[in-house]
């Protein structure tokens, strides 16, 4: 015990017998904060996405990975995870013990992931049709070929869920065995802030796309940040306060790196999602057509699982809620979990909540 804390203990003995210990802890943490703070600045961010995998198909913005099995015996039906087009797929594979992919592999699933590279300048003409009628079907075909199985379960996160829903609606005679979605927006009226910012009276999407080609990641990142403008600063204060705590710092760095690692969006795809989904709400109304084929969610008959987050500020519950009601499946389930848009999928809470629920639901439907 140092002199300062000893004096404090003596003086405060009448008021609080633990005061000395608390002051000592405070002083120690302050010292640790300074030491670890220097370490934080001097060391690179933790490496993520380390679960062994093989790139089995790549085409421009599209990457299809196959993760090497970690179980001696696996379920018959492989899983194809479809990442959101706005962020990198390592949110599914943050670190050992905090990786959805690793968890699924250990539970005996054969896991494939569609991850996205930043679309190149020459990919500005990619459209919803490219993603739904070309990229996903091509990946499903390659998963079938690689695994030797006809059936494939598709799992989509956020916009990856939207694309998976569209794919499932247009391929109801196809190889999809189950559909699982996380925080997937369907009714865009309830994306209140995005609705306001993309108000067709003011938002010149044509001019933006025609000028820029692809939409830069800074614009996407800023729009997410603006939903909760104080949270980043509060997070940094929280980081400083917890700088002595290695686990907290590691977790913070992983999530911070992932959230800032935003991808650009293909220009035509952005134009189409703004006009069709934000302005016309055409997926919800059943009026969306891709290559002349109407996307009717009622055509989805396969078992459906939808996990939504109670405190999701990006996809509010009301925006995600209609999915289960809209599909034609008899076997369907929605679970509302504590957490936000990201913490529901990755991090300590996801380990306890979403992952076991997903495993239980999938296991019975993967044989």
């Amino acid at each position, binding site marked *: 015990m140092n002199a300062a804390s000893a004096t404090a203990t003596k003086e405060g003995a009448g008021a609080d017998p633990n*005061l000395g210990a608390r002051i000592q802890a405070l002083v120690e943490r302050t010292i640790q904060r300074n030491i670890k703070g220097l370490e934080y600045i001097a060391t690179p961010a933790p490496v993520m996405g380390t679960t062994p995998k093989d790139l089995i198909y790549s085409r421009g913005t599209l990457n299809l990975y196959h993760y090497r099995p970690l179980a001696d015996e696996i379920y018959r039906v492989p899983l194809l995870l479809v990442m959101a087009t706005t962020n990198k797929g390592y949110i599914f594979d943050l670190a050992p013990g905090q990786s959805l992919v690793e968890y699924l592999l250990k539970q005996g699933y*054969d896991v494939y992931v569609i991850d996205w590279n930043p679309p190149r300048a020459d990919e500005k003409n990619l459209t919803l049709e490219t993603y739904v009628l070309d990229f996903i079907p091509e990946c499903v075909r390659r998963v079938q070929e690689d695994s030797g199985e006809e059936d494939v379960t598709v799992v989509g996160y956020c916009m990856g869920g939207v694309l998976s829903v569209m794919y499932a609606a247009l391929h109801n005679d196809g190889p999809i065995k189950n559909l699982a979605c996380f925080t997937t927006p369907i009714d865009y009226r309830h994306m209140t802030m995005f609705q306001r910012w993309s*108000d067709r009276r003011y938002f010149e999407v044509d001019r*933006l796309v025609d000028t820029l080609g692809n939409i830069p990641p800074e614009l996407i990142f800023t729009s997410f940040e*603006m939903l909760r403008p104080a949270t980043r600063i*509060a997070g940094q204060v929280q980081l400083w*306060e917890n700088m002595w705590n290695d686990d907290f710092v590691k977790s913070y760095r992983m999530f911070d790196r992932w959230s800032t690692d935003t991808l650009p969006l293909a220009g035509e795809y952005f134009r189409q999602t703004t006009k069709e989904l934000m302005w016309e709400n055409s997926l919800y109304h059943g009026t969306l057509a891709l290559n002349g084929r109407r996307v009717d969610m009622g055509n989805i008959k396969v078992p459906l699982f939808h996990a939504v987050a109670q405190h999701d500020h990006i996809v509010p519950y009301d925006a995600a809620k209609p999915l289960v009601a809209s599909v034609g499946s008899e076997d369907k389930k929605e679970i509302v979990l504590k957490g936000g848009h990201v913490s529901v999928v990755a991090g300590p809470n996801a380990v306890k909540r979403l992952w076991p629920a997903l495993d239980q639901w999938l296991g019975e439907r993967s044989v």
Partner: protein
Amino acid sequence: MAEQQSTPDPVAAFRELVTQWEKGLNEFASKAMNSDEFARVMNKATTTTTTMQQQLGELIGRYLSSLNLPTRTEMVNIGERLQAIETSLHRITAQLDKLGASTSGGAPAGPPRTKRPPSAEQGGSA
């Protein structure tokens, strides 16, 4: 016990202060940004910025051209040609993989796909 609780904890107080500040500012900002006026001003600013960026890009393009350096369009064209080569390579690799699989018996390698869910195993053993 009551004495302990009455002792102020500066760290807890600071944490609470930050939480309240974050909540308050987020609520205030959400209200302020959820207005027609904000949407109009924000989109005007975005359009102005992107137009300026475009004009700056064109200016730099002209400068590069005067230095006899490749333009962005030319680089994009090279990128497209590289992409076409990449696609062909993947197609060839896929064909070779398929050929290899058919000559080696065709069955994909890996653990057996015989796993049953724990509920089924429990049911089976009961």
